[in-house]
């Protein structure tokens, strides 16, 4: 069943997806027990698309991001799974790469901008030094080439290149540093960009410039992007497809409009109902009761069942797998029809209200 969704989507596109993940399991041992952070995750990242991984704290999304470029902590192990990377006809099994080849892979094929990126700079080095350090560590460019590329990319992200390249990190604002990181990540021309909470620490206005920038960069340079966030509105802004994660698994995966307007998983529906909008109007804002599960001691069957209004005995016994629900839209739930009906009602009510407001 699982392979169905992915093979189908692969055949839809004429080009092979740059990244394919199959049956990925990541866990790590702590004093209390074994944390199952990523459980059987499978998806394709299509060429030129932006895929958003949405989930709350403790759902495993950051671990998944780190696993893709194998930057997990020592205590974490990739128990099983496949990560296949493709570019220009070459195919690379990422999990089989040696450390030296991994270093090449990171940044040149697949760059990652981390969550605490604003603190990722060494305060005693100038921006240029840090850029050059990165280039040297991952290879592929001469010093002059690097400098030229750096200046070009810095102006591309709307920074004053001359001023920024010789500045110290503390002389730049949070938004500027984030833009420098974006420029740096594109320096070695990667095919894939992974961003973890790219705008979380930023102000509203700064966030807007970064979001606009990310959209522009993707459209003009054409890389594929995975961005990880807990913020639904960022997915609504930038994503082509959205994957919602819960307790280490992807519970729903589909085009952004499907996920928001026609969700089929209770958790996705719950998230949408729990997030207020500013300029829209939402009457029925509702929290999801309970809290995310302990990744060491997961509930039986479907991990969401303790918080799910549609849960039945079946849900308590068997964990649903991610399977195709409609075209290009996969869900891991036994009661998707019910969820869909509920979502339709909700959005209709919303649209009526909206019409009533303006009409």
């Amino acid at each position: 069943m699982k392979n169905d969704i992915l093979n189908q989507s692969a055949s839809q596109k004429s080009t092979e997806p740059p990244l394919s993940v199959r049956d990925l399991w990541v866990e790590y041992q702590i004093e209390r027990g074994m944390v199952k952070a990523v459980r059987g995750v499978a998806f394709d990242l299509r060429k030129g698309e932006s895929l958003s991984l949405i989930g709350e704290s403790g759902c495993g999304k950051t671990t998944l991001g780190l696993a893709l470029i194998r930057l997990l902590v020592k205590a974490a192990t990739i128990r099983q799974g496949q990560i296949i990377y493709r570019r220009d006809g070459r195919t690379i099994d990422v999990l089989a790469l040696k450390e030296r080849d991994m270093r090449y892979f990171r940044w040149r094929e697949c760059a990652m901008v981390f969550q605490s990126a604003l603190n990722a700079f060494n305060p005693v080095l100038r921006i240029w030094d840090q850029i050059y350090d990165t280039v040297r560590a991952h290879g592929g460019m001469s010093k002059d080439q690097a400098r030229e590329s750096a200046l070009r990319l810095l102006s591309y992200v709307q920074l004053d290149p001359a001023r920024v390249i010789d500045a110290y990190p503390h002389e730049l604002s949070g938004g500027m540093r984030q833009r420098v990181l974006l420029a740096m990540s594109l320096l070695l021309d990667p095919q894939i960009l992974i961003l973890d909470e790219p705008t979380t620490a930023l102000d509203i206005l700064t966030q807007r410039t970064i979001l606009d920038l990310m959209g522009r960069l993707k459209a003009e340079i054409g890389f594929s992007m995975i961005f990880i966030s807990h913020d639904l509105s960022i997915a609504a802004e930038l994503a082509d497809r959205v994957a919602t994660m819960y307790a280490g698994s992807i519970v729903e995966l589909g085009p952004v409009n499907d996920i928001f307007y026609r969700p089929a998983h209770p958790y996705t529906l719950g998230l949408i109902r729990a997030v207020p909008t500013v300029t829209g109007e939402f009457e029925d804002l509702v929290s999801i009761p309970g809290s995310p599960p302990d990744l060491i001691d997961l509930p039986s069957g479907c991990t969401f069942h303790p918080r799910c209004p549609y849960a039945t005995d079946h849900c308590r016994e068997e964990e649903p797998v991610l399977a195709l629900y409609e075209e290009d839209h996969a869900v891991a739930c036994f009661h998707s029809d019910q969820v869909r009906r509920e979502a339709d009602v909700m959005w209709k009510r919303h649209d009526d209200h909206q019409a009533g407001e303006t009409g």
Partner: protein
Amino acid sequence: MTEYLIETRNLTRTFGSRREKVTAVDNVSLGIREGEVVCLVGESGCGKTTTGKMIAGLLQPTGGQVLYRGRDVWAQDKAGFKDYRLGVQIIHQDPYASLNPSHTVCQILSAPLLHHGLATDHQQARERAAELLGIVDLTPVEDLLTKYPHQLSGGQRQRVSVARAITVNPSFIVADEAVSMVDVSIRVGLLNMLSRLKEELGVTFLFITHDLAVAKFFAWEGRIAVMYVGSLVEVASTPQLVNDPLHPYSKALLAAVPEADPLLTRHKERVQLRSQDIPSLLDLPSGCRFHPRCPFFEEGLCDVEWPALIPVGDGRYIACHKAAQG
């Protein structure tokens, strides 16, 4: 004029030495009536948290006054000040720092009850603590009373914080980004609980946040005050502000916020700012602080004259030369 429960008059707070002075809060005048909900919104560094702490009496103003029930709080006698202290409580942002890790929930709640004689012995304090946990929707009560903070989730800790704040029956609560560090899916539950406190206990709220959607949701029946680099730039009722912002900064904020609705957010009209640079508190722009970024900037006016916060009818206030012109 209706009497305000909390009023600030030209409230100012500067930090630093004489040579390098930073004005975090600059002449903020705001009045909040009993039973109202006012949201103080703005981006980081705008001074909203500092204002909140001064209103809660945890920071002394360097200029201006804070009035509680009409009396200047820092010019009162001990009894009056104590009355104010207990009447105004704060809820902090970080659920991981707001509770003492060495105390159980029962101890955290009993301490103020016993200290102020609201409970005569430990048994009574425990009973009252259980009641308070019920008010903030924390169950199972018996189980939770014996827990230490590290055994609770972020949302639960925030609820304990709220329960602690209401032990002394305050009239006014300053909620400083109280839901910002809590998971999205439980934010609404917390906000609904706080709204219920307003309805059932008659508590007045000053809700500080940088999240406009949360501000709109919580203060829909109330008002929003927008701050920029230490001053108030617009004060209006929430529906007014959200549907018809007058100040260019408010317009920019509302247009910039991404929405959890793809069609809505991708077709939203954006406001283009003239500059991306955020002003530094050490080197503030002349005249109106927003002028370097303002799309309605008028040379000779906006960079010269400081716009005062003036009423423009309908209960709205605005600090902008151009908007005031109409």
